[in-house]
């Protein structure tokens, strides 16, 4: 007879050889560098913290208004404001290193050279487990999404980053494409160790009383539960197309949502906008996944990956 301890299911997952204690991470841009939400949630209960996008130099971001609520979601056009890699390494990384969770640094740039400069600079820092390369931000005019919508450019930038990177790389894909499978294959062909998706869907909101765009940037990225079915479909298609791990995200609000993404083919999941609704949500989802496994008599969370049938 098994003791109760042995009967606890295993929640460990591995992304490019990096073992996470559970498959729940934070989605870039919704968790800062973890400090603010550490007042609410014990970060050691998370599989990984994925940081806000970091560029080599500080970025000012877009004018305000930058955010607005939509039905079961929100639009944002922050424009990747960040203090730059030096401040990130000096201030944020030492904090994250202390948290007993994996650290995934999201990297952004306006050009191939800027991505490479950022990665080279970050390579020397201590405490980074993985990079997530943001080639899918819809809110910056140059770079960003330009790489995420063209398979040849995506393959090329992936290959160039991979060659100089000290850590495995996750390419974060844009949903604003016709064929997500083609984009996932392009990232894999360039040597991506994993892909993550979806970033936000480009949207727009108009204030009808004032007859003005709500966001100063006019368009913004839609996130939240409103986009979840689109995200599940794309995660499924990407997982069918590539053999590297897929990290699924887009509107995850509950443990059931996280399980849904894993059944569609995600090896791990990230929680984004719902952090703003409930700062405890990530840890609650990790616990909920464990309860799901117990309830279904599943010994290892990896058994869920791609297990959808019928």
């Amino acid at each position, binding site marked *: 007879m098994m003791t109760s301890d042995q009967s606890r299911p295993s929640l460990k997952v591995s992304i490019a050889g990096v073992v996470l204690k559970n498959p729940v991470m934070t989605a870039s841009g919704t*968790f800062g560098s973890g400090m603010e*939400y550490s*007042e609410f949630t014990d970060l050691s209960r998370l599989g990984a913290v994925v940081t806000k996008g970091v560029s080599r130099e*500080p970025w000012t971001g877009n004018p*305000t*208004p930058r*955010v607005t609520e939509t039905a079961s979601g929100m639009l944002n056009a922050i424009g990747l404001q960040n203090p730059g890699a030096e401040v990130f390494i000096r201030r944020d990384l030492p904090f994250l290193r202390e948290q007993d969770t994996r650290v995934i640094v999201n990297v952004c740039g306006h050009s191939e050279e800027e991505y490479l400069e950022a990665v080279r600079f970050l390579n020397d820092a201590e405490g980074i487990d993985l990079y997530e390369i943001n080639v899918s931000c819809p809110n910056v005019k140059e770079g960003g999404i330009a790489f995420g919508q063209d398979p040849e450019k995506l393959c090329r930038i992936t290959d160039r980053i991979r060659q100089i990177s000290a850590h495995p790389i996750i390419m974060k894909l844009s949903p604003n494409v016709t064929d997500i499978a083609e984009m996932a294959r392009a990232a894999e062909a360039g040597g991506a160790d994993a892909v993550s998706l979806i970033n936000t869907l480009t949207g727009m909101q108009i204030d009808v009383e004032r007859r003005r765009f709500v966001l100063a940037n006019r368009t913004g990225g839609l996130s939240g539960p409103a986009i979840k079915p689109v995200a599940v479909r794309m995660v499924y298609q990407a997982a069918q197309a590539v053999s590297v791990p897929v990290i699924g995200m887009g509107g995850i609000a509950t443990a059931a949502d996280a399980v849904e993404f894993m059944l569609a083919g995600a090896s791990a999941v990230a929680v984004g906008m719902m*952090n703003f609704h409930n*700062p*405890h949500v990530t840890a609650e989802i990790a616990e909920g996944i464990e309860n799901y496994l117990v309830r279904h008599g599943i010994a290892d969370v990896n058994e869920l990956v791609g297990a959808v049938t019928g």
Partner: protein
Amino acid sequence: MKSVFDAEIIGTECLTPGIFSTWLSCPGADFAEVKPGQFVGVFPNDPSALLPRPISLCETDAEKKTVRLVYRTAGKGTAELSGALPGQSFRVLGFLGNGYRTDALRGKHAVLFGGGIGIPPMLELAKELRKAGEGRITAVLGYRGAESLFLDEEFGKYCDEVIISTDDGSTGIHGTVIDAAELSELRPDVVCACGPMPMLRGIKAYAARLGVQAFLSLEERMACGVGVCLGCVCRTAHKDAHSNVNNARICTEGPVFDAAEVEI
């Protein structure tokens, strides 16, 4: 300490069309460091409205663990709050933002400017300054017209003088709050203000003319309320430590800023 707590409606009244006053019981909130000028994020129970509604504290009672919110109904979140019955609960994120440093205002002639829905946080500030004792408090409150007055009588309890201005001249001084302050020849040592952006720009210039310090409470669309999303930034004169790019977070470094430090 910031937390998410349950807040139960004690009662709500309509002060003037579109403006509501709601008292909430918050036994789970930490009132130890609550300050005037801080705000809460109220989560609607409507599952399609996921973001917290930032609403400034109009009054707090740390002993009873209650807060009073006075707000304009602007959308479905505030409509739900204003229509909620006593006993109904909301999840609330609080207490957020920096608030006013009342020790910097003590013993001085503080002129508190409030415009429209910027008036409520000034009430708690007036109350706290009065509690602190010495010093003169003048409130200058701006409204559209006589029919839209609210909270004006309550300011009388804590202020040495309350000056009213209206856009249409139907009561008080005809003009802006700055017109009213100048006509009344106020000689503040320090100025505090909350209201629409054109008014805050005017207050910044007014304080500069007089050579006195001004503290402005800013507002911007925000998502998280705790400094994560970087939605609610404002341009600052100096690089702040967090952003490293002259963009302070209104929810965290603010909402109260020294006027000289923000480019508005």
